[in-house]
Structure formats: structure tokens, C-alpha cells
């Protein structure tokens, strides 16, 4: 079931496009914003609300990198693995994060504090390597800086 506030926000998006189905990406973003991820039940609720099939909603949800179809931790670390960061030290950064958080790419730490995900180019190539935690961008990151960065996120 979608909440009243979710419906209200989706209704606004529907008002901007010629037909309901066109707001499916916005609807997925809205649900994820409120719940952290998009469950099977949410996919069905969005499908009902937009009058399309759940399979169609899921085909869109699973196509895009940043719609989460599994639960994520309280904070999501997006580690840039594209070419400039690769040249400038991405591998050392990944290794350090694995050791500190005891997780590999795509996993969530046991305390559900962090999920670690690879991310294509963050557009920060002149200050590589880079990573993003939630909405915060960190650039010129060295493994030695990670403790100070991570402790900001409870």
C-alpha cells in the first residue's frame, strides 16, 4: 500500500506528463525516498496505482542502477570504479573499505550501517579517486582518510 504522502507526490508527477505510465520512474524514486528501497509489495502497489502490470514496473526498476530492489544499510557508499579513479587508486580504496567494513561490493555490513556499491564515473575525475556517501561527495580520497570520513555516519 502506498501512503497518503507517497500518493500525493506521485499525483504531482502524473500531472506533469501526458499519461500515468510515464511517471513510473518518479514513482519508484518517491517510494525509495520514503522507504530506503523498493520491495515486491511496493512494485505491485505502484503498478496498481499507475494501472500497468507489476512486470512492467519491475522491468524499469531493475534496469536502473540506483533503484534498490533489496534492502540497503542506513548509508550507501558509492565507490567510483571508472577509469580515472582506477588509474588514481580505486583498487587500494576498495581493499581498505573491504577490510574496514568486512564486506565486498554489493553487500551490507552486519550492523546495517553501510552498503557498498560500485558506481560509474561520479564526474570528479580531476580529484580522483572519489566516492559518495548518501549525498556527500568525497574527492582525492586516500585510504588513510577513510576512518575520519566513515565516522560521520552513524
Amino acid at each position, binding site marked *: 500500500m502506498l501512503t497518503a504522502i507517497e500518493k500525493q507526490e506521485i499525483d504531482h508527477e502524473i500531472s*506533469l506528463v501526458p499519461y500515468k505510465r510515464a511517471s513510473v520512474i518518479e514513482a519508484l524514486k518517491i517510494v525509495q525516498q520514503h522507504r530506503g528501497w523498493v520491495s515486491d509489495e511496493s512494485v505491485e502497489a505502484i503498478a496498481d496505482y499507475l494501472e500497468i502490470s507489476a512486470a512492467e514496473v519491475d522491468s524499469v526498476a531493475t534496469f*536502473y542502477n540506483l533503484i534498490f530492489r533489496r534492502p540497503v544499510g542506513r548509508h550507501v557508499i558509492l565507490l567510483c570504479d*571508472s*577509469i580515472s579513479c582506477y*588509474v588514481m587508486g580505486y583498487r587500494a580504496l576498495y581493499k581498505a573499505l573491504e577490510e574496514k567494513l568486512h564486506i565486498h561490493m554489493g553487500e551490507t555490513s552486519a550492523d546495517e550501517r553501510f552498503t557498498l556499491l560500485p*558506481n560509474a564515473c561520479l*564526474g*570528479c*575525475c*580531476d580529484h580522483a579517486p572519489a566516492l559518495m556517501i548518501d549525498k556527500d561527495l568525497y574527492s582525492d580520497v586516500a585510504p588513510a582518510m577513510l576512518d575520519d570520513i566513515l565516522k560521520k555516519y552513524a
Partner: protein
Amino acid sequence: MERPLTKNIHPDRPPLNLKEYEMTGGYAAVRKVCGGMSPAALQKLVQDSNLKGRGGAGFNTGIKWSLIPMGDQAPHPKYLIANADEMEPGTFKDRLLLEGNPHQLIEGMILAAYAIQAEISYVFLRWAYHKAADLLRKSIQEAYDAGYLGRDILGSGFHLDMYLHTGVGRYICGEETALLNALEGKRAMPRAKPPFPQISGLFGKPTIVNNVETLCCVPHIVNNGADWFKGLSYSEDGGTKLYGVSGKVKRPGTWELPMGVTMRELIEEHAGGMKNGFGLKGVLPGGASTDFLTTQHLDIKMDYKSVTAAGSRLGTGTMIVMDNGTCPVGFVHNLQHFFAQESCGWCTPCREGLPWVEKILLSLEKGEGTPEDIELLKMHTQLLGPGNTFCALAPGAMEPLQSALKYFHEDFEKHIEYKKCPYD
């Protein structure tokens, strides 16, 4: 040297708000056009300036606009879209313009929309650019409040609405027809052309998609004229260009320079040369999907024609430098991992071929390769090349691979001979 696009961008202070932007001459071009310039005259002006699309394709912007239906019989609404989905690995130029001077983009969009008589415009912004999203939302509202957007702009009878759409992450959204599908709430798969977006674009209506940097040039062309714009350049392509350098150079960064500066000037002067202890081995001149150039090409001009003549593409103009301490096989494997992951999966050669290329490169990098693998890779550069796939993603992926096989073949062979990566 004039730097029209970046002269009001100062990294140490917030971008200009509407009033400050107006005090530097901002929105004068909108006033000029709304004061009586015809859409046809604006299209002609931009065509004459020889502004070419800065997203990578390098097509004349005025000619692109001229293919849209005009007049009473034209379908409506028409759409103008700013492609701000900057996601080509190694590219970080549009972020500077979006974060540094959002009103310049909005003004360019109003002018482009006027030229094609569009009534709805979108900024298609990549998800990761949170700062740009906040700035654009605020600036679009300021433009509405000042009467530069909305109904009957400056009493001209021209209406334009503008919306910000943030994507949810997929490289293929940068391809203009895939971007249209994403805006329609679909999977971002490219569309067959024809029909071109000018005829049947967003929601089946006439649509123009322009890159951020391209649109930011338009106010300056309107204010100063086509000849002035052409005069900014060292080459026959008009204007300045935002160039970037990343990799192991002393001062990585972005600079607005005359179109056609040399690769040597960019790397040695602006980027300060290689970091101590590193030598230059290769350069991707315009993003991940462009062919390698090497030290023999340092004196070529960074314009569309010269880079093409040297066997690569200007692309986005943001170059990635490969130093002599970085393994070319590992470098190219990283690129192919990206392209394999970002393939939309629609056509078989791209969906199936790119993961195979990635796997072959990984086995080479681990010292498990055979001489036949090099032949297999060469074969794939043909099979996934132009004409064999639905869109330009796989052919773009093959550009750095085919040129790496050409310029760095010894590195590939050493991985097979030594049964390990010689750079480890």
C-alpha cells in the same frame, strides 16, 4: 583570451543568483530575441557561428535545430531538452557549468526553445549531481519569478515551462533517443532512427536534445554574433571548448580554451605535465569511448577534424592520460567492464559480445591468456564495430580496445609470455 562560458565562474564563491547574473549581462540575449528576432533568424545565426554539439557527436547545432517542423502546421507541444546526464567516464566538464553558472544554461535553453518554438523544456540531470540539482531548482524558480519562464515571456507571446528531471543511473541515458525513453518512464533503450527526434521525439512530438555546454554557448552567440564566436577558435569549428585532463598529471582540471589548442599545450602547460616519476604512455582524448592517441600525436589540434584525422575523436574534450606505470591491459579491462555493465541489453552483439571481451581481457591480465585471445579480441573489434549494433555504445567501446591492440601490442604479448601482468 576570452572565456565567455567560465568568466563568471569562481570556485571559491557561490554561483551568481539572478540579479547578479543580470548585472553581468545575463538574460540580455533573451531580451534581444524576445524583442523581435525571428526563430528562423536565430537558427541561422547559430548555424553561421559553426557551433558544433559538445556532447561528443560534433554536429552543427543550428542545422540540428533547422530539421524541426515550424509554422502553424507543426505538431505541438514541442520539447527542448538539456542533456546533463554527463556519465562518459573521465568527463567532468558539464558539472563545472551546472554548478558554476546555472542561469547561463537556463538562458541558453530559453533561446534554443525559442529558436524551435518549443513550449516545454527539461534538464535531464544525472543522479549523482546533487549540488547541481539544488542550484538548478532554485535558479529555475528565480527565472519564473522574473518572467523569463512561464506564459508570455517578456510580452513576446512566447511561452516556456522548464522542469528538472534527475535520472537514476544508466550510461545509455546519454544517448538522445534512450534519454527520451527514460523521460517517458521506460527502460532507457535507444530507438531506431529514423524517425529522428526532431520529427518524433518525446511523447511522439518534435524534440531537440542538446548538451549542456552547447546550450551555454548560445547566449554569447546571440549577444556577440557569429563572426565573434568563430573568432574565438583556433580552428574552423567555432568557439571555445571546455577541455579537461585527468590521470597522473601534476594539475588535473578543466579549462575553457580556444577550440583547437594542442594536446601538448593541454597536458604540459595547463595540467603542468606528468607527475614526477611518471611518463606519458597514451591518451584517450575525449572520454572512455575514444581511440588512444600516443606521444607521436601531442602536436595535433584538439578540434573535431584534427582528432578524427589522427584516428580518434574529440568526443567530450576531456582527456584521460595513461601513464607508463599503469598496465594498458588492466586499463582497457576497466573500460570494457564499464561498457559491458552499461549495455542496455537490447541487441545481441553488444549484450553478449562485451562481457566476452571483458572476460578475455581479465584472463590476459591474470596471466591466463593465449595468443588466440589477441586474435579473438581483434575479431570482436570488427564484430562489435559500426554497422553491426543498434546504437553507438559497443562501437564506442571498441575504439580504445582496437587502438590499444595497435599501440600497446607488446604489453598484451608480455602478459601471455610471462604468464602474469608485467606491471604488478
